[in-house]
């Protein structure tokens, strides 16, 4: 189980980092989603891995699992969900305004007398 969990986190993170470094917004959005999945699973493991135990602490309880990481993961899921929606909308806006889905800034951002859309290539 430890191996399964840690390798899942590792694979998700690696895929996420690779995708975030791509130059197209769609891949970047996918990458940030992967990264947030990886982190959510990782947060679960911060309360130590316990199977088949309730997430509450009672006096005399034999086993229990830490409830706090579960609350944190819930918060993190909600936030990353909202953030993904924002970045998708923003990427869509940039695509509609600029005509392409590149992540890097065109040369017109740094130098005068370049038309918007001139990527300086």
């Amino acid at each position, binding site marked *: 189980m430890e191996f399964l969990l840690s390798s899942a986190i590792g694979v998700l993170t690696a895929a996420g980092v690779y995708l975030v470094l791509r130059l197209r917004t769609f891949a970047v959005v996918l990458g940030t989603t992967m990264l947030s999945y990886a*982190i959510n699973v990782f947060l679960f493991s911060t309360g*130590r891995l316990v199977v088949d135990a309730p997430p509450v602490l009672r006096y005399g309880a034999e086993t229990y699992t830490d409830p706090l990481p579960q609350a944190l993961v819930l918060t993190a899921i909600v936030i990353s969900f909202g*953030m993904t929606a*924002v970045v998708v909308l*923003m990427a869509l806006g*940039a695509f509609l305004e600029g005509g392409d889905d*590149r992540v890097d800034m065109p040369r017109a951002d740094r130098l*005068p*007398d370049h038309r*918007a859309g001139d990527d300086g290539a």
Partner: protein
Amino acid sequence: MNHLLIAPVVLPAVIGPLIIMWMRNDLLLQRVFSIVGTALLAVVGIYLNWIAASGEVFVYRLGNWAAPFGIVLVLDRLAAMMVLLTAVLALAVQLYAVGSGWDRKGWHFHALWQFQLMGICGAFLTGDAFNLFVFFEVLLIASYGLMIHGGGEMRLRAGVQYIAYNLAGSTLFLAGLGVLYSVTGTLNMADMAMRVAQMPAEDTALLRAGAVLTMLVFAIKAALVPLHFWLPSTYANAPGPVAALFAIMTKVGVYAIIRFYTLIFPQDAVTETLLGDLLLPAALLTLALGQVGILGTRHLGRLASYAAIGSIGTLVIAVAQYTPQATSAAIYYLIHSTLATGALFLVVDLIGARRGDLWLRLDRVMPGNGMIAALYFITAIALVGMPPFSGFVGKLLVLQATADVSWSVTIWSVILITSLIAIYGLSRAGSLVFWKCYEVEGPDRPEAPKDPAAPSGPIPPRLEPDEQIQDLGDAPANWLALTATGLLLAGIVAMTVLAGPAVRMAEATAQQLHDPAVYIGSVLQGQEGTK
């Protein structure tokens, strides 16, 4: 429990939704409510400073739950000062946004503004590490909306970069918090500090990893080299008043560094000098890159952005020393540089409104040239740290605090040489914009080029309407915009005239920060009557 402690979070959190739900279509009401709300925030900020000046640390336990189980807000001198600074900056910049007409260039400017203030004030007041993450997200999501206010291709493109960078940063923050939680078993900052101090030295490998991870996150927020890449495009493309408010956002990162590494990871404990060793070279590089950037850029918005990066460099050089004297210098410089950077972004926006774009090049004389020139040069002098303004006092304090440390020769030479570069860069930009324009003669700029490949005459024509500026003709109350800029400069003058009391206050704040026992005791003890 003093309920006004939570007012800086609740007040904007109430006014923001009210503006969206009740006054969506009435800009006048929005302006009135939003400005009154920010003014009330400033009044609360003054009150909080007044009670925090006693040196006592105030704790607000939400729902009256006992720490470390419930979430706490903690008010000490530093938090109170940051809340007041935020409110003052926000009030002046908001008046500017109203006066220049920026707030009517798109929807929901004032609502987003209030949410932004809620996030910033919450980040300053919270005593819970996960809560800090949540407030970071609140201020970030509001800043995404504010940053693309007004729309336009470049702004949206820069916005995508900004969001992607900060999403990665937030992910990293969660990872850091997860590591810290797995080691200490708590997220309450005071409790965490106590447990870290008790931890046997051989068990601290993961803890150090967590400390460096959170440091990276705060360095992203503060835009320290090499994590600064998001800043120039974002700030240069954001609307002028929004960029001016963002002057406090990089300081949120610096605040978090100061808070975490005086409270949870003090230098003599597990992390030893690890973080100072990482911070100082990064800060020196940041300063050098920012000031060289001022010289190298051809865009006024980017010039102000690089000035912001440079001021963060100077600030973090002082923070990285971890001595009470250096921390007090950092606190003084923090107030000064927030006001000065904010003012510079406003002045740049004033120039943009009069020239039609922000490119740094020869152009016709703009209306009100002398007035804007005076504002620009006062801001520039304050920013580079020349006498007589507070930048000089601030830099002097930083130099004094680094006089007898092992890196002092490097630090002094970097600060002094880069200051010279910045003076050169800012005065070159100023003389090009304000003085050389008198040499330009001829008719008004042509409306549109016939052939964009061959620009006619000595002045290249503007290619298309620039979304980066708010045209002067659209400004409803230009006097208000000028007054608001003047307000920030008045703040700089006040920091200069009242340098003595300000430095004494900074020293008291630094003393309190370097004695975390009071903070920890206030949070964890005296909890009778809580649940």
